[in-house]
């Protein structure tokens, strides 16, 4: 192929990739038990955020979440014993992404945990994400004490079954239009989900009320959703995974299909390069800290939640959420607009269905092209929570982090080789 042919082939493949992204029809259909829903998720297996990693390389919060999950599953009696088991190779670790799943922050999923199920009805694939536990001490930030484990049990035994039944009864809740409305309400679906959480609650409340007899229990379910502005984040993540999976494996496409971090390394996958991970050390988020915490307490970047940026939301949709820009700057509307415009430099298209009022209803930047990332010297902007570096403490702040350039450079080298021009 001549240089012009290669370029044309890549353009065409990328157009196909974005076509598939835009054709997606994600619907929240169920809450199921992970071990039942996720094929291959068996005993003594722990799924985690990010690219592959083994116990010795894990950061504090991930180790904490792993130990907590082991106790939750009853594979060890206490946290110390759980850590020993993990260190001795007594459990298998796999990335969520290898099991059609995603999880925020540490992202740990084990077989008894309830997971939300999003189906991409245009392509028939399903993706899974845990339920959002709320703020403060939670397993996704490495929390693992009795209170954390008790909440997880309540989610598994009470919330999950009821919410799942309601979703099945409703025939699922379509998400695409909900996101569009959320963007106009100031959500970017990573740091701010208050609009979409409310929209989801509004949509599901009547069905839930009919499905649950006990008024106190029903009130508890409403309280849990209504009391957690970030409840919808996990829905958005499962949706992101459901949208991106059909984009994998398009020959000649340089579009990123996944971005993810395990607290130690940041990894990306590229459509035309199959399921290979291209990794580099994670960076430190910049942002604001809860009272009593500082940068010294922060863990490096972690979580599968970057799937949200991969589909054009989060840091890419910052223009919809000026306040989120305030984590690292003055939080002006102009600043927020510039974050989104900067992402237009590294993407293939705008999403005509997900538009931002403050950008004259321009669509969110969609389809990250590794060529444009390397050429522009700009890596994706990611909105993120910040975990404490030690296990068991939880979230200490929130802010913004960049994907490391080295991932994209390595991917570009491999892509050039795959295209026969390296």
């Amino acid at each position, binding site marked *: 192929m001549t*240089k012009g042919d290669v370029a044309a082939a*890549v353009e065409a493949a990328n157009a196909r990739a974005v076509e598939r992204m835009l054709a997606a029809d994600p619907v929240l259909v169920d809450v199921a038990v992970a071990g039942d829903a996720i094929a291959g998720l068996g005993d003594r297996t722990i799924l985690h955020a990010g690219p592959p990693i083994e116990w010795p390389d894990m950061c504090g919060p991930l180790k904490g979440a792993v130990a907590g999950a082991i106790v939750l599953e009853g594979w060890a009696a206490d946290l110390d014993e759980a850590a020993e088991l993990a260190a001795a190779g007594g459990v298998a670790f796999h990335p969520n992404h290898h099991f059609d799943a995603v999880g925020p922050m540490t992202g740990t999923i084990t077989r008894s945990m309830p997971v939300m199920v999003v189906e991409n009805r245009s392509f028939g694939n399903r993706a899974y994400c845990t339920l959002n536990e709320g703020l403060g001490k939670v397993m996704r930030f490495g929390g693992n004490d009795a209170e954390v484990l008790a909440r997880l049990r309540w989610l598994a035994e009470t919330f999950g079954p009821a919410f799942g039944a309601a979703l099945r009864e409703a025939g699922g809740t379509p998400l695409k239009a909900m996101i569009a409305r959320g963007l106009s309400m100031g959500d970017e679906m990573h740091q701010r989900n208050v609009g979409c959480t409310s929209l989801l609650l509004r949509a599901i409340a009547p069905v839930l009320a009919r499905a649950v007899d006990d008024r106190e229990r029903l009130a508890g379910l409403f309280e849990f959703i209504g009391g957690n502005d970030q409840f919808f984040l996990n829905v958005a993540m499962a949706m992101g995974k459901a949208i991106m999976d059909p984009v994998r494996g398009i020959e000649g496409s340089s579009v990123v299909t996944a971005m993810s971090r395990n607290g130690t390394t940041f990894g990306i996958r590229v459509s035309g390069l199959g399921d290979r991970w291209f990794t580099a050390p994670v960076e430190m988020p910049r942002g604001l800290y809860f009272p009593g915490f500082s940068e010294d307490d922060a863990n490096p970047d972690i979580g599968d939640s970057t799937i949200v940026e991969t589909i054009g939301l989060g840091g890419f949709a910052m223009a919809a959420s000026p306040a989120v820009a305030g984590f690292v700057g003055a939080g002006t509307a102009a600043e927020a607009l510039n974050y989104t415009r900067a992402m237009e430099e590294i993407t293939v298209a705008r999403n005509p269905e997900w538009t931002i009022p403050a950008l004259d209803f321009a669509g969110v930047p969609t389809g990250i092209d590794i*060529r444009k990332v390397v*050429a522009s*010297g700009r890596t994706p902007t990611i909105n993120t929570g910040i975990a404490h570096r030690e296990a068991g403490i939880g979230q200490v702040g929130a802010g913004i982090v960049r994907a490391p350039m080295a991932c994209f450079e390595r991917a570009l*080298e491999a892509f050039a080789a795959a295209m026969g*021009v390296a």
Partner: protein
Amino acid sequence: MEDRKDPIQDLLDGPVAVINIGLAQFARTLEGQGVAAVQVDWCPPAGGDRRMIDLLDKLGA
């Protein structure tokens, strides 16, 4: 006679519409005269990394 596909004739027929890559002064001057101009704030591709630029050129980016 008019061939709309001839890009030189299209330019000479006007109106001129400019993408200005580099010195912002050129774009400002044009805008001051009512000429449509978009300023591109250029920076070296791939931070000036020759090897990456070579790959990008081969990949049409």
